[in-house]
């Protein structure tokens, strides 16, 4: 409480001062920064260098998508100017780039800034400046809290609700399960784990027989998998990013551990995870999904896939079609276009935020059938639905209902 008051005081002081010292922050187009009659300036922060540079594919896809949008006439006649900067997955650098985008480039908003640490670092600044930080590229549950951070909104299903779904499913389908969990020792791993425990409820302590974490700096996770198998677990929950998930699936198969395997949604790519791990080893793996996997043969004749392919061929020919980051980037860019289209000519930050927070059953071509986005002033989680699916050795087969996670409901 005390802190908040300080913040308010600071904000007041900051406004007065910046006006008093005639800093160029607020000048032309005072009510619609980043917008002219012909252009909308959007900012983005992504790791083009450093340990997480794999994710830069998303920003590249988005950039390519806006090329397509611009070529097709833009959004309500305005071209999108997409400024994407590198933070190397370093929070201090993310702050610098966010300030550059807001203060120097004067963008309308920042969207799809990537990573929990980087988004955490800029969240306070963005809210103080009242610049929308939309559709952030992380599933950390904290980015969906309209009370504390009204200018920050997530996009993908949050990690906790994913964990909850697994927990619920295990309690109902395998009440005698002995669970071994491997998780990445960061916000993602811990969030899914926390969700899993919540989903298991009061049986969590008795059902989870072993936990093993790993650091992204470790070359292999063999030791963890061997340890989990030795615990006698018959359910293996694999909360890992693609490389480690693939290693773990492969290792579990090699040591003949015939547990029911659940793999986190981030690692469901057939091409980037299951094929490297071995299709035989991957058969029977369970996960959740919300986007179509373009390598999955069941979508071979899907017109949405054809559109996506045409887009990739024309606007992002260097892109790797096997990477589901391109599907992700394509879809999130479409979401942004949807919001900006809805905002019409009233492209103030307030109105854009309002449009983002009032999506009703918006669906996207690459969503799994039955999925949609819904937001409100109190619900900052656009995608909350997921569907369980199982890999049959060739493709993912959805089963059960489209499930809704309740976090922040």
């Amino acid at each position, binding site marked *: 409480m005390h802190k908040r008051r300080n913040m308010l005081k600071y904000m007041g002081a900051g406004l007065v001062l910046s006006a008093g010292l005639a800093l160029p922050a607020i000048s032309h187009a005072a009510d619609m920064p980043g917008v002219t009659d012909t252009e909308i300036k959007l900012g983005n922060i992504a790791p083009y260098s450093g340990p997480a540079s794999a994710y830069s594919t998303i920003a590249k896809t988005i950039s390519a998508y806006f090329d397509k949008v611009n070529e097709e006439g833009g959004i309500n006649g305005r071209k999108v100017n997409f400024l994407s900067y590198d933070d190397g997955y370093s929070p201090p650098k993310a702050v610098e780039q966010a300030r550059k985008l807001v203060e120097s480039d004067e963008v309308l908003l920042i969207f799809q800034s990537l990573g929990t640490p980087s988004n955490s670092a800029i969240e306070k600044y963005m809210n103080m400046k009242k610049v929308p930080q939309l559709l952030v590229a992380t599933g950390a549950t904290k980015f969906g809290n309209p009370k504390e951070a009204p200018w920050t909104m997530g996009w993908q299903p949050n990690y906790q609700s994913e964990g909850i779904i697994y927990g619920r499913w295990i309690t109902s389908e395998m009440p005698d399960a002995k669970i071994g969990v491997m998780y990445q020792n960061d916000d993602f791993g811990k969030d899914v784990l926390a969700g899993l425990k919540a989903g298991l409820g009061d049986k969590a302590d008795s059902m989870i027989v072993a936990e093993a974490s790993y650091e992204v700096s470790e070359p292999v996770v*063999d030791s963890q998998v061997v340890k989990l198998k030795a615990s006698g677990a018959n359910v293996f929950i694999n909360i890992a990013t693609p490389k480690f998930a693939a290693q773990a699936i492969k290792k579990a198969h090699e040591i003949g551990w015939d547990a029911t395997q659940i793999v986190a949604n981030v690692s469901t790519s057939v091409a980037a995870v299951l094929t490297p791990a071995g299709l035989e080893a991957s058969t029977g793996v369970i996960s959740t999904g919300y986007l179509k996997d373009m390598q999955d043969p069941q979508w071979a004749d899907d017109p949405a896939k054809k559109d996506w392919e045409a887009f990739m061929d024309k606007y992002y020919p260097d892109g790797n079609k096997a990477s589901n980051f391109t599907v992700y980037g394509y879809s999130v860019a479409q979401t942004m276009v949807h919001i900006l289209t809805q905002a019409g000519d009233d492209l103030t930050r307030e109105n854009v935020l309002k449009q983002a927070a009032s999506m009703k059953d918006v669906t996207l071509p690459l969503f799994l059938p039955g999925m949609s986005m819904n937001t409100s002033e109190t619900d900052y989680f656009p995608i909350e639905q997921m569907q369980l699916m199982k890999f049959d050795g060739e493709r993912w087969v959805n089963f059960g209902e489209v499930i809704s996670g309740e976090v922040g409901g």
Partner: protein
Amino acid sequence: MELLAQQLITGIATGGIYACMALAVVMIYQAIHHLNFAQGEMAMFSTFVAWQMLAWGVPYWLVIPLTVVISFAGGVAIERLVIRPLGDAPVLSHIVVFIGLFAIINSLAGFIWDFTIKPFPSPFGEGSQFGGLISNHQIGMIAVTMTVLVMLFLFFQYTRVGLAMRAAAENPASARLVGIRVGWMIALGWGMAAAIGAIAGILIAPIVFLEPNMMLSILLYGFAGAVLGGLTSPTGAVFGGFMVGIIENLAGTYIPVIGGELKLPIALFLIVTVLVFKPTGLFGRTVVQRV
């Protein structure tokens, strides 16, 4: 007890990766008396070259020698074109150049082949031993590492070029005075280190999957193994690599609460402790000098 045996075997299998890299580290250290921070990236790039050739349909048995040769040439070229112009600049300037090389190679690989992980086929096929604890590939990898180690030993001990390289590394001024072309010996050292790095990369990639950052942490483990064993001894480096793998796994399994979270820190802590008591590593040789 069973878990202990399992973790030991897993540790040896993982240690094989580190041993492989440590060998390459020692190789370059012998030649230039620096730790080359770009070494892991060079190995990664070589592996991508091999992957690209496989993708173009070049048969496997041809890809490996070709990659080794290309990497050797690349190593020599880097020494001649990048390192040599530095001349006798201070050590720290060399280190900055290594860091620069690191950044260049990493970024270039990502630019050319992007960051999605790629499976890399094993020359030893699928399948595994000891109930899956160690794959055929890992056994093959350890065998190759040992073979390379023996070949290196024979090369340094019994060939004139090997002798010249040792002499040049130990005392460049004296080496010049007996007519050894020290500059070329250093270039040769770079070439060999790059070639061994390429082998290491090709052996490691099937396990950790190929991507531009795959060597980031392995290099650290390779350094650790090399330093633990003693930077002056290829045998020590290989042994050190295995030790690091085993220590790390046992610490992760048996130290309660924080063990799993601190696998790497515990391993590094042990290594630093060893160094404090034996500053040249377990197998390191102190050159005796009577005055």
